[in-house]
């Protein structure tokens, strides 16, 4: 049995919880720092990254999450979650959690009226993944240790660095569970080691 948490400070928590549910996965909506202890993997959901960061600081999640990362436990960030995981943010002096060697630009496609959906080819998953992009960020560049999993019109929209996975879009808003399954497999692999 794996314990996978979804950081539940704000955002599309319920959708991730639902998408992760499986017979061998115990999904936990994480509202308190103590809940991080028993987790084998953590999802940072979509939402408003500035709000989440403020609540991360307010409730002293920052150091415990950094510790979680130091233990190389798998982490998956979607949209705002990917922004939190970047180690460089366009237009900002400081990143948030700095998990993946990538530079991310917030709201890169424009305002809400420019939000869209499109089919993507995601490495290791398939050529027909529906990407829902909502005020989405893009990954401007990645370090050489980072594997680019998907691009859209030449822009990087999904990437993986070892146990860390990030995407600009919202797999939790579709019925396609493959991205979540991919992450669950990452968690399963990490437990074998």
């Amino acid at each position, binding site marked *: 049995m794996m314990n996978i948490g979804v950081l539940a400070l704000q955002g599309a928590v*319920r959708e991730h919880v639902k998408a992760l549910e499986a017979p061998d996965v115990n999904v936990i909506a994480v*509202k308190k720092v103590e809940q991080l202890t028993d987790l084998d993997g953590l999802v940072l959901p979509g*939402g408003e990254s500035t*709000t989440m960061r403020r609540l991360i600081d*307010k409730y002293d999640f920052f150091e415990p999450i950094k510790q979680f990362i130091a233990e190389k436990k798998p982490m998956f960030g979607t949209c705002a979650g990917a922004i939190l995981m970047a180690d460089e943010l366009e237009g900002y002096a400081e990143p948030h959690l700095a998990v993946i060697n990538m530079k991310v630009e917030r709201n890169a496609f424009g305002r809400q*009226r420019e939000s*869209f959906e499109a089919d993507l080819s995601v490495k290791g998953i398939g050529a027909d993944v529906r990407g829902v992009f*909502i005020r989405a960020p893009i990954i401007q560049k990645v370090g050489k240790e980072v594997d680019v999993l998907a691009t859209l019109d030449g822009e990087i929209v999904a990437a993986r660095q070892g146990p860390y996975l990030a995407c600009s879009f919202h797999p939790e808003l579709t019925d396609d569970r493959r991205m979540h399954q991919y992450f669950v497999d990452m968690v399963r692999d990490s437990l074998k080691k």
Partner: protein
Amino acid sequence: MEKLTGTDRVKRGMAEMQKGGVIMDVVNAEQAKIAEEAGAVAVMALERVPSDIRAAGGVARMADPTIVEEVQNAVSIPVMAKARIGHIVEARVLEAMGVDYIDESEVLTPADEVYHLNKREFTVPFVCGARDLGEAARRIGEGASMIRTKGEPGTGNIVEAVRHMRMMQSQIKKVIGMSEDELMTEAKNLGAPYEILLEMKRSGKFPVVNFAAGGVATPADAALMMQLGADGVFVGSGIFKSDNPQKFARAIVEATTHYEDYALIAELSKNLGTAMKGIEIATLEKKDRMQDRGW
């Protein structure tokens, strides 16, 4: 690669990202920054907050675009703005300005006494007020991507928001528990589109995000609405009509996140200064009730 904008999934999904959060009314860049700093998930750019609209009387319209633009330039979180019920041009103007969400709002004086906007025709998503499931389902039928309870705006009195949220939640549960052969009669009784009720019945949930609004004046009020099943809260006059907006805004955000942590809410509620004065609903004349606007 073909990009589809303005789909239901993109419009409703935008509201999904706001869940568990607080959307704050602001009238200038300074207030917008305070709201963002406090952890608001979005701001509603207005010319006047509801309590001032109520006090001023006369016709309340879409905000001056200068204010909307000023707020858009001040923050990176989404910016919403209000258009009058049925005012196609105000809504198109706000869409053209790149507002992230439009509130077709009873807080403003309605422009059409019969029809709401056909919100399906817009790329920008809409939020609309509702007092019960019939009203909510009609708005969703017209294309609203998010619903909020109406409450009674600008009163600082939570009682109407509670009434509306309890009503909606009980009606939602009832529809989900019904058998499909009962749905058409229920649709008739509620004045709700049948297809929306069928969608609810089959998916087992209300189809869009449902926030609480209209009367939230304290952190405890916000937490109360979350407990009654709201996905998040709109705070209008409550924050910037209080003595210490910064502290107040933060307290409301935290109470919304941890709505079941009563010791924390006690801490948050200490020394907040005076909340907005508030109005007893029974003293409001029928013509002054904003919640009755909308059809």
